[in-house]
């Protein structure tokens, strides 16, 4: 109760704090090291894309550290100067976007609507429908390739429009395979929205559509953002579906573009590294744009 007994207390607290300080900086150091380790491939790829083509066989990318003058944007300007010619880098980037953006938006919107109905709807068999949807998550995509090609063909012979080889065909395929997981994610998030909120809005005069738009969607934003990021990256990185369903289309996705540069004996590494950098930048931008919501979506429920 006196200053005498307080002082040792304080110094002990100080000691504990300084010990915590040391262990904390050690932790930061370790985390930093892990971060650098993970970034090395990306950094090397970036440096390779910034070095002249001719140097590739002569020295490693790390020689940049001693001779920074070799860095040049020549590779980029060479690829960009082709403009939007079919099969070029810019055209492929545009194709990837034209497929990925609608596929992402459609999956997020449709999954949100389906989840709303599964959680707040009032129809029999909701649980069975949800379980069936969850079951679809485990269906491997490869199983559906041939049946869907056949399906597209019969749609074509019936209506005169065969989605095979078109962007729409690829988008439909991605939406179909994105929905089960999307519905699963959104439904599990919506289940956590207090029923009272929805009932309060109902009493206040909200009909289903208003309820969905004004109450449920804003509250489900973290989950929707997480789903959008997942779906965007998944579709953006897809090679298999594009390879099969864009057959015969002069426009190709970025993954197909990169795939075309690899050959059995030699490869244009300058094109691959530059193209790969372009294909990294866009999903990275999407991730950072949604990161705030995304992280909150992952933490949702854990911290209240």
């Amino acid at each position, binding site marked *: 109760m006196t200053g005498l007994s307080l002082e040792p207390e304080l110094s002990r607290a100080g000691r504990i704090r300084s010990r915590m300080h040391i262990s904390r900086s050690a932790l930061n150091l370790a985390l930093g090291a892990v971060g650098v380790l993970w970034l090395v491939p990306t950094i090397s790829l970036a440096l390779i894309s910034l070095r002249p083509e001719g140097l590739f066989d002569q020295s490693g990318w790390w020689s940049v550290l001693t001779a920074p003058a070799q860095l040049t944007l020549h590779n980029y300007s060479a690829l960009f100067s082709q403009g939007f010619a079919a099969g070029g880098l810019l055209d492929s980037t545009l194709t990837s976007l034209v497929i990925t953006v609608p596929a992402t938006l459609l999956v997020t919107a449709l999954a949100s609507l389906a989840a709303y109905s599964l959680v707040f709807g009032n129809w029999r068999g909701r649980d069975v429908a949800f379980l069936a949807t969850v079951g679809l998550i485990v269906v491997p995509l490869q199983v559906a390739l041939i049946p869907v090609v056949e399906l597209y063909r019969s749609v074509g012979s019936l209506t005169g429009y065969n989605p095979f080889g078109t962007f729409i065909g690829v988008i439909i395929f991605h939406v179909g395979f994105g929905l089960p997981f999307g519905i699963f994610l959104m439904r599990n998030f919506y289940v956590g929205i*207090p029923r*009272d*909120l929805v*009932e*309060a*809005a*109902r*009493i*206040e*005069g*909200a*009909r289903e559509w*208003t309820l969905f738009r*004004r*109450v449920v969607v*804003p*509250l489900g934003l973290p989950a929707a953002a997480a789903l959008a990021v997942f779906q965007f990256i998944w579709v953006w990185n897809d090679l298999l579906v594009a390879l099969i369903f864009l057959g015969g289309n002069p426009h190709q996705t970025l993954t197909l573009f990169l795939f075309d540069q690899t050959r059995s004996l030699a490869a244009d590494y300058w094109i691959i590294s530059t193209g790969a950098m372009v294909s990294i930048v866009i999903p990275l931008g999407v991730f950072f744009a949604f990161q705030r919501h995304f992280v909150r979506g992952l933490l949702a429920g854990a911290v209240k």
Partner: protein
Amino acid sequence: MSSVTLEGLTKQYQGDVLALDHLSLQIADGEFMCLVGPSGCGKTTALRMICGLEEISAGIVRIGDRIVNDLAARDRDIALVFQSYALYPHMTVFKNMSFGLELRKRPRAEINAAVAEAARMLDLEPLLERKPGQLSGGQRQRVALGRALVRHPSAFLMDEPLSNLDAKLRVQTRAEIARLHRRLGTTMIYVTHDQIEAMTMADRIAVINLGVLEQVGTPRELYEEPRNQFVAGFIGSPAMNFMQLDVADATERSEHMRLLGGGIEMQTDDDQAARLRSSGLKRVLLGVRPEHLALGSTTDYGLVISARVDVVEFLGNGTSIHARAGEEDLLATIDASKPPAVGDAVVLSAPPPHIHLFDPESGLSLDQPSPRPLHTVR
């Protein structure tokens, strides 16, 4: 503003669970009605059926002169305050309050005026731009009230709105709700498990137990003339003492009758004797409230208990005594400057008007069939 009438309101869940069994209740225009009962008694189910949040298995809900059974919740012109407050976390306090009016497409100016008025009434003006996450429990509660207020509904329904507040704030908000009701004069249906809330605020109380309406009446009626043992035990704090006594001289033609139990003796008055005789009971359940027991034998008639003091609790404005008489544990709240000590033998007594007699089998009050209300000492 309008009356609310329930006729044979019944809720049956799958598997034959009767949550509410033919509840009939008339709530007058402007009345403050409390539905009170232990948790799971069906009072919240009743409220939710009035709101339109729960399907009605059988019976009729009338608001004003409209039967609203088939109306959606939004068309019933009522407002509900939830136990959890149910504020929209992504909207500001202003938005929370104006949301309902916006959905009803009211003009901007009217919305702003209504919100401003409610905010002034509830001291929410400095908080209008905050979000619910930035408010304290009491503030959230007031926003929930404000949200109900702005729409000027024909009835307010409240589902345990105070149970998430701490004790001090609860007392304060209780008074605030009572004041609001007086000022607005709107019909109010208030659900609570806390009989003190019901006693302090309600014009009338409906006591519900196991889905059945036990009694409806003013707080005073329920306190003084409980119809059965459940109501007697549920209303009043601390709860009523009950003891089983033998009817000693049931055949004797004297004016009074004597009831006996271990260390407990009761000399009835004429009324009670008459009722006991007509009931033909050999054993009777006697109830007396702790606050009606006094130290010492004060009357010739009435209840006299010889007991041993078990626990003495000093409360400041009185003293609680837990005492043991034969098999029975009793509680007496006495105003004694010199309370007895633990272990003392004491005599506790109460006059006949404060004694309630019940049929031990059915739990029904013996006072009930008599048309004359039990007179009380006032």
